[in-house]
């Protein structure tokens, strides 16, 4: 029996492809928020599972890197586990769940709660890179709109939200203006995470495999969420704290417990929640369990 992944180049992609992706990444970093076309390859996972993110990770990963993979904030969900194992096998990199220890973080739908540092790279998986797509179906036209900075139409979408719901009801993929020049889709991260993109010291790279686009936000770049003067941008808040770690300021997931209406709210960032619990922070549910034991 041979080793399961023998015969592949380091980190799966061939070196020419990696060069091509790195060139696209450099261009993307030079023009913050601009969508750079690239020759997206077939990857051994389906479109929509992070083919764009995986290609960027494969192109910049080296043996000294420490990789963390996030799926919806968690390290232990299917997509995160498979992509982590993919690079463990094909690039022999160390992996971690700790965002502070990672040099490269590939993420789907969340930015870690813990602040990121310089020298770190955050790679996003992007399903739809074009923020204007739902409003203007012609690619030719959207490219012109980006080229000439004609972004009034995006504002119309927010107008429609307020007209229909009384407030800006867009909660994820909330459009942002990068460096006051390019309109950018921040991928389906909750708008809760939008402020974290602003002036972040880490490098943020975005890869859309099916749509064959790469874009980037370099360190310390302005990222402004669109809004109206009389309806300013705001992030989600919860009346509850996390039921496991008691955090009142993190992004919470609602978990249904039974069919009797039982539910609890827990941090979506699993590592953040666990490390808080280890530090002795307890949520309502943990306290109840402790009392039951006493």
């Amino acid at each position, binding site marked *: 029996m041979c080793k399961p992944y023998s015969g592949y180049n380091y980190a799966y992609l061939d070196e020419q492809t990696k060069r091509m992706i790195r060139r696209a990444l450099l261009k993307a970093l030079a023009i913050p928020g601009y969508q750079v076309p690239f020759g997206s390859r077939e990857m051994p996972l389906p479109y929509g599972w992070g083919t764009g993110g995986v290609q960027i990770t494969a192109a910049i990963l080296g043996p000294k890197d420490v990789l963390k993979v996030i799926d919806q904030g968690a390290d232990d969900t299917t997509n995160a586990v498979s992509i982590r194992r993919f690079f463990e096998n094909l690039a022999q990199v160390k992996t971690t769940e700790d965002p502070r220890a990672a040099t490269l973080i590939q993420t789907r739908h969340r930015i870690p709660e813990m602040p990121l540092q310089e020298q770190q790279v955050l790679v996003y998986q992007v399903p739809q890179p074009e923020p204007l797509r739902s409003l203007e179906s012609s690619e030719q036209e959207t490219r012109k709109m980006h080229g000439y900075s004609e972004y009034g139409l995006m*504002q*119309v979408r927010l107008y429609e939200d307020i*007209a229909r719901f009384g407030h800006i009801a867009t909660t994820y993929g909330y459009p942002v203006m990068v460096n006051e020049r390019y309109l950018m889709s921040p991928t389906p991260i909750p708008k809760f995470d939008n402020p974290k993109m602003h002036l972040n010291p880490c490098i943020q790279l975005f890869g859309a495999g099916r749509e064959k686009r790469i874009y980037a936000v370099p360190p310390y770049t302005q990222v402004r969420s669109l809004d109206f003067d009389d309806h300013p941008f705001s992030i989600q808040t919860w009346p509850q704290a996390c039921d496991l770690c008691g955090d009142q300021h993190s992004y919470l997931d609602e978990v249904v417990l039974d069919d009797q209406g039982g539910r609890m709210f827990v941090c979506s960032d699993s590592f953040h929640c666990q490390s808080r619990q280890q530090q002795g922070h307890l949520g309502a549910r943990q306290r109840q369990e402790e009392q039951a034991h006493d």
Partner: protein
Amino acid sequence: MTEKDWLASLPPPLLQVEDLSFYYGDQVGCLDINFQLYPGEVLGIVGESGSGKSTLLNCLSGHQPPSSGRVMFDHRQQGLVDLFALSEPERRLLMRTDWGLVRQNPRDGLRMNLSAGGNVGERLMAVGARHYGHIRGQAEQWLGRVEIASDRLDHLPTTFSGGMQQRLQIARNLVSQPRLIFMDEPTGGLDVSVQAKLLDLLRGLVRDLNIAAIVVTHDLAVVRLLADRLLVMRQGRVVESGLTDQVLDDPQHPYTQLLVSSVLQV
């Protein structure tokens, strides 16, 4: 006052078309068109199908560069400029601020998946309006001016009747207070009573706001009501031009005579 003084006292033309021709390959779209349009003036362009009306309108409204000739426009900042010498972003800005385009089919001119308010507000947001209350207020005011009840502000245009959609399209174009508006068969596909109402509304708006308009139509009744001056086109050429009543009541060219006499009398 001599005739020379009188001519000098006129405002400069808003639009000046010089020897404009457009060819589809070796087929003539329109040939050697010359005219001037003054501020607040309504010009009708009539002719049968295939006479080059729409080709001419596409060239005039900046959508299609002519094969030869020039379209000069009195730009607010730059004065008289060649439309196709402007850069594309400048031309696009002109199209959504100082110009309007009312299409025959309102579904082409409206965004059908946006509410009426969003449709009217789009131009305001395109030039940087960022106050929801003000945008909404203006949208509501414009719906009122085109006689759409304000409780329809948040409804989709798909729920509107054909006549209402056409009026919404007009409001959407006029909200930026353009100086020039192009209309391509504005009453096509509407029944006669709705047509009459729409024409009445258009005539009032154009007069009140002092907007210049170019109306392309095959319907002589429309130009009789709206237009000050008339161009009659046939096979890509202008065969007759003049004041509307003069051309319609005393047509000189055989084709115009045929056109006028073809109108059904009830």
